[in-house]
């Protein structure tokens, strides 16, 4: 456990020194700048747009971090041969994978936390400057705690994407890993459509194939509750827990696969 923690903290330190937190500054500037502009241009929709923008930006920025750092976590160590001295230490290969994964999840957690805080700060400011009469027209409160539900699912989705990137990077090149991860992300986001594919095609084989793919590919659309939250629609706790459990199971399966492949790999 101590080895996993040391490796994870080292990944976090690497991402900090690689200036990953710069994206947080960009995020804050984007959010504050756009809130000012939107306040000037829109009537009554500004808070909703800020929420949309904040959640979407957290998702996109997180996605970039998850994919681009995720694919380099292992491949960079192998390419630069820094893994040689590391694996000669008393750590097992599964511990190495667990540490690398935990380190990037920690980086993502800090990112999501800071982005959430920045979004609430902007929303708090908007709430503070608007009149009570104007605020009455909002579908949900400005600093709605339900936004945290959306953020929590975004974070789990990012953890899942990181696990996908890590999985591919253990047996393919960084460019191919990025392409495969991004491809799977897109497929996963559209996965819900596969569930009902049989209603739009006549071919039984195609319907079965679609059903099979639906079960194998990650259903990332399940993690997207932005619309409900922004419009103040209820999201049941049971849905949140079952989606989180689904994400955790998928992540565990991917990490297990990654560990098995990585444990058999030769470092030529």
């Amino acid at each position, binding site marked *: 456990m101590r080895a996993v923690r040391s490796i994870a903290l080292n990944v976090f330190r690497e991402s900090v020194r690689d200036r990953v937190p710069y994206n947080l500054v960009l995020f804050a500037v984007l959010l504050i700048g756009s809130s000012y502009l939107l306040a000037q241009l829109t009537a009554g929709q500004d808070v909703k747009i800020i929420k949309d923008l904040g959640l979407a930006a957290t998702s996109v920025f997180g996605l970039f971090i998850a994919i681009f750092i995720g694919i380099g976590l292992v491949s960079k160590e192998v390419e630069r041969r820094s893994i*040689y001295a590391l694996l000669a230490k008393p750590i097992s290969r599964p511990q190495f994978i667990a540490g690398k994964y935990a380190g990037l999840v920690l980086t993502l957690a800090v990112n999501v936390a800071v982005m959430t805080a920045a979004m609430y700060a902007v929303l708090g400011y908007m709430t503070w400057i608007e009149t009570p009469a104007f605020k009455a027209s909002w579908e949900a409160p400005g600093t709605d705690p339900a936004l945290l539900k959306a953020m929590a699912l975004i974070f789990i989705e990012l953890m899942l994407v990181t696990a996908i990137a890590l999985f591919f990077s253990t047996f393919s090149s960084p460019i191919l890993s990025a392409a495969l991860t991004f491809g799977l992300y897109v497929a996963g986001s559209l996965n819900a459509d596969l569930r009902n594919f049989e209603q739009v095609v006549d071919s039984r084989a195609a319907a079965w194939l679609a059903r099979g793919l639906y079960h194998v590919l990650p259903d990332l659309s399940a993690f997207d509750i932005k619309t409900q939250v922004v419009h103040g629609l209820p999201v049941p706790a049971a849905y949140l827990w079952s989606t989180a459990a689904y994400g955790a199971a998928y992540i565990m399966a991917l990490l297990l696969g990654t560990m098995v492949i990585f444990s058999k790999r030769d470092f030529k």
Partner: protein
Amino acid sequence: MSSAVHIEGLTKDYTVGFWGRRRYRALDRLALSIEPGEVFGFLGPNGAGKTTTLKLLMQLIFPTSGRAEILGRPVGDVAARRRIGYLPENPYFYDYLTAEELLTYFAQLLDVPAADRRRRVSTLLDRVGIGRERRFQLRKFSKGMVQRVGIAQALLNEPEVVFLDEPMSGLDPLGRRDVRALILELRDQGRTVFFSSHILADAEALCSRVAIIAGGRLAAIGRLGELAEFAVGGWELVVANLTPEALERFRPLTTRVTAIGAGRYTLELPLAQAPERLIPEIAATGAMLVSMNPVRETLEDFFVRRVAEAGAAERADTPERHHAGG
């Protein structure tokens, strides 16, 4: 007492080609044992299989067949790695860490007690000659400095067995001297040192025993002076003031005569031609014996011969020797 390192029939094939159908044998049934406290030189030309062997011992790659043990434990035993140190060939570490941070990180992985960590890191960096630069990020380090950091990290856990893959690589003459002194220091502390090199002088200065590997196969093993390959093969005499008449008299006894200039010649004698009988005759002609040395095959000569032999064997016997899978 069990061996520090024991290798039995260790073989490694790599697959090559797009479909991975052909196999290339990088290491062929290597067998050797190293006793505790030995400084063991693992010598061979580039591509001989030295790094492959070390990677197999560190389980960075897996053997096709055969087995190896370190300190009586199979090489896959993670706990046994607490007792060993390893310097990879041309090591590379994390650009964003300082030398001090890298060693502290590795010390954590090696379970060096927190109270002891700082002192040990500092002492080792002093020992390998990294001064104020220890607080610089490794991206600013020269190749030689990275090599020194690599040596320091291999010694963090005060290992019983140290594996050094080309430890002199990238070092200047001062650095090479320091590393030689360090290896002897490790020997004096009773540690086992297994180091690979392609430089005979390193082995001659340090090793109690050597193994020579060529074309993935063990070519020779033993004390350097006792190896048949390096036994005395003749004599080389440098003679001054030798008259042309005297030279012609001695020429039939030599295998080769080389004029150095101003009446100086190098006379090469076969092993059977005892030089002590010739020396009085040389003196009788008024010439002077300047030096006399035994002629041994150099490691370089040995390499060249073995590589040529391996090449010939490969041409004659391609499927079996190097393309194991055909």
